[in-house]
């Protein structure tokens, strides 16, 4: 009877959640290193959410699918280049690097194209009709769904067989934690791409256009900024970075090429964008790294099964108490 309830709850209280601070401390550096490597992927994807939000005030729910299409693009490039699943390729280093860059290019192009198509097909007609924002979100959800399902029907619900170009190997140790060659590559490459994107937005004329539209669309239009072109540009930049993220993702987790592989990652990247301050490119960068690290601390503290809960709780808490994130909203004010 209900009499059991206290017992169940009490037992549950001891059982199902416990705080292992010792483990948190023990694995602090391990989690930091892993969190930064994984978080750089969040950062790259988060940029797409942030830019589009900054300019259109729209959560591009389908951005996670932009990402996963990039993953498939990279995967099929591997296949096309003659890599086979199962083993680790033994190609010479130079060849491997060239192939990786090729895959990066294909992934970025695939994602960029999907993002652009999405803008054209799903969002632009609505913008023309001056549809309410909720309609945009529903369209985005529908697009996300449709792309996922199309991939699933084309391939199948199971992940593609893994292909790995570089075998992971510990390179050196920081704070007693070994860093693998893949983690280092991914982290540095992501950082470089983010810096390029940042200086593009801050230094070039087109980038200034994006900032101007984000700050005040009407004035920007009056000042001669072509709003449509700016919108297109934000989708393309977001798409390109998501494509890069996709390659880095399958370098770390080669089993991740699967139709719904973008969903959770997309939500987390969005969380990262909100965490740093949505609409703010540097916020996305910061948010991605922070979320990657927090998530790992959380799972050390509470146990592996709580990892995703940690991410969602971070999302909710931030939206409720500081909806403008750490660095504040608005792309326009992103210049520090």
């Amino acid at each position, binding site marked *: 009877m209900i009499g059991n309830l206290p017992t169940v709850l009490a*037992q549950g209280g001891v059982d199902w959640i416990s705080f292992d601070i010792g483990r948190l401390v023990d694995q602090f550096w391990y989690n930091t290193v892993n969190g930064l490597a994984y978080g750089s992927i969040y950062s790259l994807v988060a940029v797409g959410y942030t830019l589009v939000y900054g300019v259109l005030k729209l959560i591009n729910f389908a951005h996670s699918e932009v990402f996963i299409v990039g993953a498939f693009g990279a995967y099929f490039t591997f296949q096309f280049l003659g890599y086979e699943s199962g083993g680790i390729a033994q190609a010479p280093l130079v060849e491997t690097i060239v192939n990786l860059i090729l895959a990066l290019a294909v992934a970025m192009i695939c994602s960029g194209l999907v993002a652009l198509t999405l803008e054209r097909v799903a969002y632009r007609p609505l913008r023309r009709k001056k549809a309410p924002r909720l309609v945009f979100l529903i369209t985005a959800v529908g697009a996300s769904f449709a792309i996922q399902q199309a991939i699933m029907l084309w391939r199948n619900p199971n992940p593609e067989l893994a292909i790995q170009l570089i075998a992971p190997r510990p390179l050196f140790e920081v704070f007693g934690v070994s860093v693998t060659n893949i983690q280092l590559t991914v982290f540095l490459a992501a950082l470089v791409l983010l810096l390029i994107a940042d200086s593009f937005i801050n230094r070039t004329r087109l980038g200034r256009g994006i900032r101007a539209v984000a700050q005040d669309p009407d004035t920007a239009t009056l000042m001669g900024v072509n709003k449509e072109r700016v919108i297109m540009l934000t989708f393309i930049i977001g798409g390109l970075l998501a494509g890069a993220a996709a390659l880095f993702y399958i370098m770390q987790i080669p089993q991740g090429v699967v139709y719904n592989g973008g969903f959770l990652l997309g939500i987390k990247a969005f969380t990262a964008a909100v965490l740093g301050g949505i609409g703010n490119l540097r916020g996305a960068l910061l948010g991605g790294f922070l979320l990657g690290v927090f998530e790992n601390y959380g799972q050390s503290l509470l146990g592996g099964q709580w990892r995703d809960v940690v991410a969602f709780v971070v999302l909710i808490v931030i939206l409720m108490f500081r909806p403008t994130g750490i660095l504040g909203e608005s792309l326009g004010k992103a210049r520090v």
Partner: protein
Amino acid sequence: MSAHHFRSGTATKVPFGQRIRDWWNGLSRFHQWAIIIPVVVLVYLMPFLNFFPITTEPGTDFELALFNTARIVLIAIGLNVVVGQAGLLDLGYVGFFAIGAYVAALMTSRDSALYAEYPWLLVVVVGIAVTMVSGVIIGTPTLRLRGDYLAIVTLGFGEIVRLLADNIPALRGNVGFRNLERPPGEWSDGTRIFTQGDGIPWYWLTVTAIIAVLILVGNLERSRVGRAWVAIREDEDAAEIMGVPTFRFKVWAFVIGAAIGGLSGVLYAGQLGFVNNARFDVVTSVLFLAAVILGGSGNKVGVILGAIVIAYTPERFQVVSEYRYLIFGLALIVLMIFRPQGLLGARQRLLARGRQAYKRLVGKPEPVSTESPMKDSGKGTGA
């Protein structure tokens, strides 16, 4: 009632749906009942209309397909209160459905530490009560947010409900609860009325629940509560300034939607006899949302039709079943672009007394306004 009542002197073509509505509104109360009652009887007799164009066999058991369709209809009616009436985009609605199912599991499965021989009706009541409370718990903090932010936060809560089911050992995660108790009752030959295999009693039960819910929700819609919801959907700030306690009514919309979702969850769990954490993901939430949007958010008849399309089509046409998520995803895009109000737009009629007053004053029955595109409820961003 003839055409000159709504478009005098113009030759504009009257849309078919409009004509149907005007015809319907022109009927007397008595005539309306004379049509409603046979329709309801027909709905109850559906399990016996198991022949060619309607049947889903041999692919799917027809009675169970009917039950599943009815279940989705019930969910869509509940979600329509939240999305269609109050304009709150809830992407975590499946969470309430899950809570209802889990309450049933916890109370009636022998795998549960809380198991006892509760009367089944009590399970329904507790299920609804618990989901309503969770509606308050989830709604109170989140409903200060608007538009997109609300959608994402509800999605987060929906996922957290699922992950909690995964992580709390008492909720048995992927392993789940087996052999849930079913409603009592035996046929004259001593066999149980409610079994997993026979969809008919479940279908009847659900249809009865749908009718009850329709009446109750209809009561709300035709009252100050329903007006407050629409006002909030249309312009939340203006509603507040006109004296509508918007926050309270938003929470109420959430809670009432939750209650209906919970009821549907209890029925679902009862029929299936098994509950685990697998069917409560975002994909399911979006499918529910598709039912509401497809039919016409804010229009009960539309929403029911939308739910039937979503649930029945894949059972009827096995070819479709594989492609259904793709089709519904594309349908959402196309619909939003070309017909954002859904297959049937929300209709707005005067209140019953308003009609009389209007007729008294103007000397003719009111024309019916139609076509409601989804309204923006997300002008502001943060809390």
